[in-house]
């Protein structure tokens, strides 16, 4: 069975302003899709809908053929979502944060793999520093280290390149590519020009206001 997230006639409006309508797409193994559009065109809104956080949309979403509303648990077990806020507690260290995320996912926390993931993200030496003493980019790197730790097929990433320096951008791009090659599926928004082969696109707000 392939994994598959499918949207049929997806439409959403906020405050009576239509954001997008008649979206139809199906994402499966190996797909990388960039959601594009100017500021305020509804990218974040779309990602929140796709990750099951926002309920007021028209149309239907299907996960492996079953409507998302009925299949939420199965869907969530396959999803890794990173939003605008990094989800990193100011009072916890990087290691503690990752251990908590692993436990939350039902995995057994393993310090070795966490250390490795942090080292890969350039946080070696900062594993035991409370996050509020880290810079904006370092905090986001902790969140991104989850990509290496939690094997979920579907990644939904909302502006993951924010505050990340150039090495970090290259690393993230290679991770996204590798994930798709391994059969995963990635939905990403960014204003960067992504350096990725076989990139699908969903354009929002092209007709504009």
């Amino acid at each position, binding site marked *: 069975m392939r*994994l598959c997230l499918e949207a049929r006639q997806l439409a959403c409006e906020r405050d009576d302003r239509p954001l997008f309508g008649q979206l139809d797409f199906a994402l499966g193994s190996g797909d990388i899709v960039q959601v594009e559009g100017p500021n305020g065109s509804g990218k974040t809104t779309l990602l929140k809908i796709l990750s099951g956080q926002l309920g007021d949309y028209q149309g239907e979403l299907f996960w492996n053929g079953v409507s998302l509303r009925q299949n939420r648990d199965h869907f*969530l077990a396959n999803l890794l979502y990173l939003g605008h806020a990094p*989800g990193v507690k100011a009072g916890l260290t990087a290691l503690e944060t990752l251990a908590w995320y692993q436990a*939350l996912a039902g995995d057994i926390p393993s310090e070795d793999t966490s250390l490795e993931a942090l080292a890969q993200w350039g946080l070696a030496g900062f594993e035991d520093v409370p996050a509020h003493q880290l810079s904006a980019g370092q905090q986001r790197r902790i969140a991104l280290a989850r990509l290496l730790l939690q094997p979920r097929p579907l990644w939904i990433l909302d502006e993951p390149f924010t505050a990340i320096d150039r090495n970090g951008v290259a690393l993230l791009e290679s991770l996204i590519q590798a994930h798709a090659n391994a059969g995963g599926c990635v939905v990403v928004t960014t204003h960067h020009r992504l350096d990725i082969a076989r990139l699908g696109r969903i354009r929002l707000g092209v007709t504009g206001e």
Partner: protein
Amino acid sequence: MNRPNEPQRGADAAVVAMLKRDLMLLLRQRGDVINPLVFFALVITLFPIGISPEPALLAVVAPGLLWVAALLAALLSLDGLFRSDFDDGSLEQWLLAPQPTALLCMAKVLAHWLLTGLPLALIAPLLGVMLALPAGSYWALCVSLALGTASLSLIGAIGAALTVGLARGGVLLSLLVLPLYIPVLIFGSGAVSAAVVGSGLAAHLAILGALLAVALMLAPWAIAAALRISING
């Protein structure tokens, strides 16, 4: 990675991790544990200053004052229960975890009660002494507060969950939650007064226990639902 993951089991591990994390965060900023206690003590200090220092008068109003002050201390500490998770995006992450949200909420409420309600119950006798509370009712004070604050934490968490997305939730939270606190207050302060008089303590405590049982059954679902609504807003 071609096969989709099945929903994981491991809910108990997740609940334990949540409990551990919250206890750790609270204990790390030691202030979070001590502050409600000091607030309790301070409010108790305000009353004799505002009302009158006469021991005879104070003894009469002591059970009510102690309970009201403990209730306010528990209430105020609730505001941060979900707010910090909301602000830094952790909340949306653990709502997306493939675990029963209600259980995770329970873990958070338990952590809160362990480090707020329980300590309040434990230091209440000391403040009782200062308010000239008649001897013999200290035990009732402790037990009724321990039982009662557990219900307060559960009920309050619903309010905290509903207001988490709103700026300045603090006062709105009080508004939502205080009316629901009234039954607990009645039977809690009633228990202490009964102990002072020397009658009917067991009945009051039994009712407090029953309230707690109801709260335990219903609150977690309400909290989980309220959180979903809040992040949707």
